[in-house]
């Protein structure tokens, strides 16, 4: 097990290296010039050239790459071209909102979707099952920003239960924090609830036809016990897989949600950095996201052993 974990961690190094090279080259070969954006619309071409030289952007790409890698090897993610602030500080400022959004979304999705999916499978073909499937299709089909605006209109503008936008750090108090994060989490959770509920239903439905379920029922076990102890546990591997994929997909979802609800998270930071060609920030964020992606996959793989003793690493 430990050897497997170590192998997986070591295997991330070449993955991250490829990501780093790819992102660096992609950024530097894409049109766009941070020096021109920094200088502003009314700067002269000569001024832009001087700023480019000061930033070292006039040097060959391989020189810039070597400099970046050398700093990275020392744990230095660089400095934002625009704000002059260390990238690690910028990421640190944005980590809490994104993490809070992802955690609450994941909790909401799992808490709602798994029981819903199991229940729909148990009552397959009934109105409950069809209603669940309608919800799942809607959850997939309606864009997050549409759900976001609807929630904002109903709960912030009309009912005034929640703020329309913004984020309160947990340090400002738990209730203000929770009020600021509920609507964006609900908006984002709709998609993942639909996804997980659908997979849960399909997995449990498949397991419910197995002989050991029939045996459990024949032994006189109650339906909740059959569902939770026998069906759900055996259907857990695909559900865990889809939860893992869902968490990784959240990285994309937070970009839209953070923009709609004005949450100062990593998603917004990424979009801003791309629009302004803030190379050090983009490179660092993509590396961080890649690391998170690899880590989540590792956790999902390890979780399989909890549900299925036949799986060994």
């Amino acid at each position: 097990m430990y050897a497997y974990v170590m192998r997986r961690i070591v295997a991330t190094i070449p993955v991250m290296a490829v990501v780093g090279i790819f992102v660096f080259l992609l950024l530097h070969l894409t049109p766009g010039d941070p020096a021109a954006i920094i200088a502003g619309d009314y700067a002269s071409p000569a001024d832009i050239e001087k700023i480019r030289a000061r930033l070292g952007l006039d040097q060959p790409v391989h020189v810039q790459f070597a400099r970046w890698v050398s700093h990275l090897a020392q744990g230095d993610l660089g400095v934002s071209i625009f704000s002059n602030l260390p990238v690690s500080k910028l990421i640190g400022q944005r980590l809490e909102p994104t993490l809070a959004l992802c955690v609450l979304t994941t909790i909401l999705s799992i808490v709602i979707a798994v029981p819903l999916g199991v229940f729909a499978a148990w009552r397959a073909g009934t109105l409950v099952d069809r209603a669940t499937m309608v919800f799942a299709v809607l959850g997939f089909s309606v864009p997050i920003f549409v759900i976001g605006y609807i929630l904002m209109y109903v709960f912030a503008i009309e009912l005034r239960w929640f703020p329309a936008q913004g984020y309160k750090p947990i340090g400002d108090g738990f209730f203000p924090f929770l009020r600021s994060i509920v609507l964006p989490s609900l908006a984002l959770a709709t998609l993942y609830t639909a996804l997980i509920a659908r997979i849960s239903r399909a997995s449990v439905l498949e397991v419910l036809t197995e002989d050991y379920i029939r045996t459990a029922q024949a032994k006189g076990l109650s339906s909740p016990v059959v569902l939770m102890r026998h069906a759900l546990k055996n259907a857990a591997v695909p559900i865990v897989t889809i939860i893992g994929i869902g968490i990784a997909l959240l990285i994309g979802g937070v970009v839209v949600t953070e923009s709609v609800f004005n949450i100062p998270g990593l998603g917004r930071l990424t979009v801003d950095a791309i629009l302004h060609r803030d190379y050090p920030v983009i490179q660092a964020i993509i590396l961080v996201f890649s690391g998170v992606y690899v880590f989540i996959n590792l956790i999902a793989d390890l979780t399989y052993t909890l549900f299925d003793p036949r799986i060994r690493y």
Partner: protein
Amino acid sequence: MTMRRLQSAAVALAFGVTTALGLAPGAAQAEKVLRIVPHADLKNLDPIWTTAYITRNHGYMVYDTLFAVDENLNVQPQMVGDWSVSDDGIVYTFTLRDGLMWHDGDPVTAADCVASIQRWGKRDGMGQKLIQFTKELVAVDDKTFTLTLNEPYGLVLASLGKISSNTPFMMKQEHAEVDAFEQVPAVVGSGPFKFVKDEWVPGSKIVYVKNEDYVPRSEPASAAAGGKVVKVDRVEWVYIPDPATTMNALVNGEVDLWETPAVDMVPLLENQEDIELAVIDPLGTQGWLRPNHLHFPFNHPSARKALLYAVNQEDYLRAIVGDPKLYRVCPAYFICGTPNESSVGVEALASVDHDKARALLKEAGYNGEKIILMQPTDIPVLNNASLVTAQVLRDIGMDVEVQAMDWSTLTSRRAEQKAPADGGWNIFHTYSTGADVTSPIANIGISGGGTESAWFGWPTDAKTEELRDMYAREADPAKQKAIIDELQGRLFDEVVPYVNYGQWFQPVAWRKELSGVLVSPVPFFWNIEKN
């Protein structure tokens, strides 16, 4: 345990819980906080290093200026207490007023101001012109400095009181001596607000607190001039990129003022009884259709004149603004409604004549060659203007290739002087605030300095440069106006550095709890009261 102890314990527990939950009334609630949604995110802090308007606005919060313009565009002293000029117009003497302090507690000195003017003079067009005419700029004592010219120059005060980018903000000498192409390492101003760096979250929030040590002038506030009296404790700029979210936040009372409401939100805001909507910038914004003067066909004056006959400002303004209350058809190069407005030579732009445009294109030798028009899809105004131009050019017989890109790509591509077929371009659109184009010195779009010093598009015309110099030397407003007339005639008849596609006015929206919002081309946050 007695009943009294139990009660005390219960009160203490309740206090602890409410504090932990963030429900306890704190000092923050007693503060008057003004929450603004600015037009852009503040990404850098040095208003000399960049010409970005958001950094200029930040500059006005924390720095101060020697002179400033009032709402009638007259230059008034701001940090300067007394000033004089010698009879021959060569030596200007400036004395700083009492009570000026940097945010770190040091007094503002004449040496700080000399260094600040020199740094600004390395970056700004008007600053460079002023330095070009300056023989000597020296501090006489702690509060007095002199500026000695080579020859009389009519724009000394107008330059030092320049309201828009780059505004000559005064900085501490140690910062003003930093290379003009590098950012200053810290924000230490002497202005009415102090920047709170620890609370700055780029892309989200910028915080300023009232500078309790600031001594405002005694005159009433008027645009950038007069007393900068701060009537709130704290100003927060909350950057919200999404217009629908911003509108909801304003309606909900989560923010107090929205600097640039999207034009399609204006009718919705007009129906909100808690919201005030007004145009506070009387100069508005001017649209520019910029042809590339280096390459065929717009290297030929007739092709550029064809654009004048092709463009109908009304079409553009309807496409980008819509509401006639918020725009004005204005062919003048130096903005309608200012002393430099001129009607000389405007006939070609004021009349729409596509037959004439086709004839002029033929005269230029145009025969169906491909024209590359850069379309920035992420800026709605410029996106719409580009689409109108594409149609207009097709109507007069041009073969237009519209290349969609984001603004960042465009700003990089427009610097290319290569032929359009090799990665260059023929046309792009931009706009400029009125405050930046009223003077022929500040208006970089009309510069005829070619590849050496003109702005992207590189018009080349020695006569234009000569007239701009004449304007700069002249101090008599009547003679300056005569030069403006001649210059504008030249621009329309020969040069056509850009085609002005109209003037429009951006409304500002604020909650009715606010009062004292100043009329000005730049948004200022002193003088505003929150009830």
